[in-house]
């Protein structure tokens, strides 16, 4: 774990999340990051924190059960097109995603 962060690293992190930050946003995050790192230090102080398994959900019990396949609620073509932000010739129009 890093004990501090640079503005360059913040920018890199933002790029990885498809976020472009303004200079003001970078400055703010840079100023507030030590408080986040301090929180991590407080977690480190928990006795035996690395001697147990991670807790992913509140209960060990798995709730999910499988059910028979059956037809669920289906939207009509008209309903789908109404929900789409852009349509063309009765089809959903998407932005180009490959160069």
């Amino acid at each position, binding site marked *: 774990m890093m004990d501090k*962060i640079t503005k360059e690293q913040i920018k890199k992190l933002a790029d990885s999340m498809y976020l472009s930050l303004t200079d003001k946003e970078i400055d703010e995050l840079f100023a*507030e990051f030590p408080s986040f790192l301090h929180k*991590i230090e407080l*977690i480190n102080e928990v006795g035996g924190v690395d001697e*147990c398994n*991670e807790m992913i959900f*509140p*209960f060990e019990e798995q*709730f999910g059960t499988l059910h028979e396949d059956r037809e669920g609620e289906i939207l009509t073509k008209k309903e789908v097109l109404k929900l789409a932000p852009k349509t063309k010739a009765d089809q959903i129009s998407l932005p180009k995603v490959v160069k």
Partner: protein
Amino acid sequence: MKYELLTIVELHNLYVSKKVTPLDVVEYLIELIKKDKHNFMEANMFEEAIKLAKNIGEVDKDNLLWGIPFLIKDNIATKEVITSASSKILSNYISPFDATMIKKLKAIKAIPLGKTTMDEFAMGGKGTTSHNGFTYNPLDKTKTKMMGGSSSGSAAAVTVPVVPFALASDTGDSIRKPASYGGIVGFKPSWGRISRYGLFSFAPSMDHAGYFTRSVFDAALLLEALAGYDENDPTSSTHVVDKYSKNTANSTSNYQIAVIKGIFDNILDEKLKSLFSKSIEELKILGHKVEFVEMPITLLRAIFPTYFVISCAEASSNTACYDGVNFGVRLEGNTYEEIVTKTRSELFSAQIKKRILYGAYALSKDNKDETYLRAQRSRRKIVEFINKLFEKYDFIYLPAAPSVAPKFNEYNNDDNFAIADNHLAIANFGGYPSITIPLGKINGLPVGVNFTGRPFEESIVLNIAYQLEQILEKKGA
């Protein structure tokens, strides 16, 4: 008659006696909502509500939610109107389906009046980050004190009041702390007790569905209506749904109650401590045993950091779908990357971007083990300690917040203050049922207390809260 002051049960009795119809009540409340200035509404469903009220038919004496109007936090999907999670990025999103909670309430003819403001994507505790601006605490005429968040709009709507109940969600304390600031009941049952199908994910391992009411009995009634397994939500529970309303009012067990000393000691408001201590005496008079217990300071100090790291990490992943292509408003760009980056950068607030980046840091290859995974291990340590307490005690009992509603600009960064301010997250770590009820007032503003119990023991959590509520109401709290 001031219908806004009535509980679910009181409204139901009026319907049964035919002194008033749902249409009378709905039209009256719509006018109240239109005049309100506390900024708790995101979108209204007035037209639909009037239609439902007009066509509701004969009163169903056995269905206490028949014709009862309610509001919905804006991260719960509804077919009729936009569900934006109070974010610019979803300001055009209409869900093709109703959340299971909404379906269930509509099926028993409760009447939704609209959607309420919230901290954007439920990330926040002040009610200040909605794309529509601040939500004000109706009890503070100066408009300088917060309602609390993230369920700020639903809390304000029940506090004003305009509705007898409002649906909400709780990932760290988003129902139970605003309930304290509003002097109302805020309840989140066990994780999985109410289906989250249609509830937008913030941090799914800690997200709970719940609601605000004006009485504990109403909270029990609602749980009967909302609890149960839902095959659309793989995390919903198959545990038997109890007769919560019957159990709430009838049980007379003597309980063992723990007060965590390290949390109580870090509350600095002496008037609150005094009110709380008096309530302990009331519980003892009722025949319950109340004891102060120790919890290691390192565990107490780790509560908020553990919550923050896990929630940011889960949020950074759960907000990835909001890209302008899969979901939400789309800003123009020449390439896919440009569209996504522009959309997310301009339409997420600065607050959300920060949380996403803290989460991305915690999940990054170099930091994951010592940040995210360690927070998950810390979560286990905290839950193991609390589960041990629950072997001896039925409940943990504490002030729900360290003070009355703070001012919007108040901020205390002290590690010990954070213990008193954020301890309710324990119930999200362990999936415990947890309820806040009004305790009394300090300088005219309410403070609340909280009971947290063992998973799926909602009946006794509601029962102890009901017992204290009855005593405090008699004493004019």
